[in-house]
Every structure is written in C-alpha cells, then in structure tokens.
C-alpha cells in the first residue's frame, strides 16, 4: 500500500498535530503528495485535538480523513469516537496507558502500546506520541526511517534542535515493541 489516510486524535498538548506534521513531512521527503489538516476549535489546551494526514502517489482529494486506514489514538473519547470509522483492513494504534480498548471488531488490526508509561520509564516524558509513531512506522512502513528522521529535523524548531536525537530514540523504542 502506498496511499495512506491517517487520523491522529487525542488531547491538546499530547503532540498529536506534531506527529501529523512529521508524518506529512516524511511523505514530502519521499516526493509524495501529502496533506495535513488539523481540527480547529475554541479549545486551546486540554480539549480534543485531531489531525488528518494523507500520503499519496496521486493528487489528494479530500484532506479531511473521515474513514482512516491508520488511526492513532491517545485518549478514550477519541478511541470511542473513531474506532468504528476505520476501514476494514485498517490498523489502529492505541496508547494503552490512557485507553481501555475493548474492541470487538475483527476486520482491523489493533496495536496496544503503553506509550505514555514507556515514555515515563525511559525519561522521555512528552514523547509518547513519537513512540506510537515508531510503532506505526514498523507496522505500516508509511515512510523510510531516514525520511522520518529528516522530517523530525524539519519539524523541530531551531531552539529545540538538541531534541532530535531523543525523538529518534523514541521512534526506535516504538519500532522495537
């Protein structure tokens, strides 16, 4: 599969939009057509945040993903809201530290990763989103690992450039679990 319709959802502050930007930039590095669309609303912090990312070999129609083939969720309300929207054959990535999954669907693959707990144990607080992305990368191969690294370099502001390495460690951690 070379086209991906990805939906990432969680609380504001979990790095949902950042993860989406990294994935979109990874696609861009590989010369794909990409789009990134955030939810926007009156809640600035702590409210729900989600974003749609499309990676495609062709021009992208809707940048709004309502039926994802990759779903990444980091809170219970988002899990409940979107789990039934995933297309058959789709892959779902769940931060199991934060979500009690009890999905009865058998037509999708569900990966439960205690990303928040892992981040805490590894002294990588705030990088649960990146650990999850590492797992997405391993299971879907949406881009080459080098492309993801290049994307992280692009997305991390100059002020935080020293954080690129720890981000890549988080990716590896996710890929190895």
């Amino acid at each position, binding site marked *: 599969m070379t086209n991906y319709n990805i939906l990432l959802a969680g609380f504001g502050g979990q790095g949902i939009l950042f993860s989406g*930007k990294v994935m*979109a*930039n990874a696609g*861009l590095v590989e010369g794909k*057509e*990409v*789009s*990134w*669309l*955030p939810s*926007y*609303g*009156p809640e600035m912090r702590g409210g729900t945040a989600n974003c749609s990312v499309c990676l495609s070999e062709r*021009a*992208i*129609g*809707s*940048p*709004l993903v*309502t*039926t994802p083939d990759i779903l990444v969720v980091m809170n219970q309300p988002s899990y409940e809201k979107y789990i039934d929207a995933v297309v058959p054959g789709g892959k779902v990535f769940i931060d199991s530290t934060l979500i009690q999954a009890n999905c009865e669907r058998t037509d999708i693959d569900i990966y439960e990763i205690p990303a928040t707990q892992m981040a805490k144990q590894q002294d990588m607080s705030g990088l649960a989103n990146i650990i999850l992305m590492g797992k997405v990368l391993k299971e879907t191969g949406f881009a080459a690992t080098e492309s993801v690294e290049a994307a992280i370099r692009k997305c991390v502001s100059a002020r935080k450039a020293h954080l690129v390495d720890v981000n890549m460690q988080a990716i590896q951690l996710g890929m190895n679990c």
Partner: protein
Amino acid sequence: MTEKQAERVLMKGNEAMAEAAIQAGCRHFFGYPITPSTEIAAYMSKRMPKVGGTYLQAESEVAAINMVLGAAAAGVRVMTGSSSPGISLKSEGVSYLAGCDLPCVIINVQRGGPGLGGIQPSQADYWQATKAWGHGDFQILVYAPSTVQEMVNLMMEAFDKADEYRIPALMLVDGLLGQMMEPIAFPEKDLSTIPAKPWATNGHKHKREHNIVNSLCLKPDELEQQVIARFARYDIIKAKEAQAEEYLVDDADIVLVAFGATARTTRSAIDMAREKDIKAGMIRPITLWPFPEKVIQKAANTAQCFLSVEMSMGQMIDDIKLAINCTKPVHFYGRTGGMVPMPVDILGKIEELARGLK
C-alpha cells in the same frame, strides 16, 4: 510566472497566501483576528516588519477595510483577510473601494453561517461574493483556488489583475483550505510589471493637478455614466478573465460543477464513478466572478445533466442554470453549516443520477 526549481515546502493555506502576497509586492496588511483566518494576520505580523512593511491590527473589521481604502488610494499594494462574519462587516468599505475604482486584495476564509454560525468550512458566502457584497451596482474579481499551490499562484495573480483593472479582488477560500498544509513552491514573481498609478493621492508635489479619490457623485446623469463606464470594464473582464479547469468533461454524461475545497472531494468522487463505468466529469470554476459561462455552455452540448456540488444550500447552482439557460437539468448536492461533502456521498448522488439516465 515560472515555477522556481526550489524545494517544495509544507505550508498552511492561510500562511501560504500571506507569503504569496508579500512576494507579490504587498507591504501593507490591515486586519482583525477571526477563526479560521487568523494565521494570515499572525503570519503578516511576523513577516511584515522584516520586509519593511506595515502590519496593523485594526480596532474593527470596518476600520481595517477603510485602512485598506486609504492605502490603496495612496497607491500601494494592500490587503486584508478575514472570515465570514468579519467579511460582512467589511461590506461598506468594499462598496466604496469599488466606487472609487481602487485595487486591493481581500481574503475570505469562509466558515458556516448565518450569524455567528460555526467555524468549520463553508462556501455559503458565494452569493455575497459574486452578487451583493455591499450596496450599489458593482462587481469584484472572485478567485476560488482549490489547492494550497493554487492559493499561492492566484494570490499573486489577484494583485496583478486588481491593479490592471482598478478593482478589488477577493480570494474566496474556506476553513479547510486555510487550515490545511500542502507542499508548495513559490513561483518567481516579476514585480517590474506593477503598473504606474498616476491617479493615486500621494501628494501632487506641484507637478500635476490635485488627484481626488471619491465615490460621491450627486448628479444622477453623471453617476449613471460613471457606472456604465465601470460596467464596460466589467465586460472586458468577463471576456478575458474567466477561468475554469475541466476534468474528464468531453465524454461525460454527468458534469459536476464544484469549486474550492469541494472540487477536491468531487474529483475523488468522479474517479470512483469512472471505476464503476459511470461517465462523470467536472468543471471547476477558478474564477467565480467572472463566472466561466462559456465552459459550462460548451459542456451543455454533450452532457445530459449537471450536478452542482457546494458547501451551502445551493448558491452557485443559479449561475450554472443561467449559463445554460436551463437547457439541461441542473441537480444539486451540498452540505452546509461546516459539513464537508465527502467523495462517497457525492458518488451516491452521481449513481442516483446515472440510474435516472438509463
């Protein structure tokens, strides 16, 4: 304009339009924050001081558009940006800008209405943009890009055409296009073609008679002649500036008409229909005023019916019917209030129409 061989960068629609304006020589921005257009003002506030320009956050949308009027009269490239409720507030100034024959560029990042409405994407300001944005007989140029790259290209074109015809130009986009990021490259912009503005009120320096920028004319016969002259200019614009993209129209039984973000989901729906051997195609108006009537008329010779797809209760559909003089049925599919018509839903409507054709 030739595309630079520069690396493509990911940029939000709102920010890409703002940067395109700067690269088109715009150094004056007057605005007021409103979701989902605020990134335009935020970007300008960061960039303008670095390029020697002016960013000014006005006390109101009304003040902002009148600051645009002042700067346009002074002869500089100037713009403002807002979203639907703010755009309504600007209507007074837009009428005056049109009546004073002043060039400027305005962005409307549409959201659901009426009233305060919502903040999700909408195309329900079509009538306002193309028919009645303010009092009096007048039109403005209306551009409707559907990708972030096209937002960049048309933004630059809007400044050129506004100057060429001394007319306000509107970029009619929506929350989806404004908020999304796509890869773009900025074309090389030739600024040597910006026309001289001998009519500008920039101080006569005792080298010419005093210039007056004015929309007042108390003699009805003279005002009539002024308006008629302006409409003669509109006729030239109609003949030369209408733009549309055609997608699989030649053999299409069902021709969908959609603009902006809606054209994106419509294109996906057409691809899905073609896989089911339904001959569907699309006309995508790139300018909404002037409306690309000729392209629609030509399609009426071969199409069996039209389907207008909009994020509204159906506004552009009127212009399609007028363009073809109702010679073919024109159907409608739309969502409103911030809901986006998705490909599968549009496909459903196409299939329904296709069954009717057999």
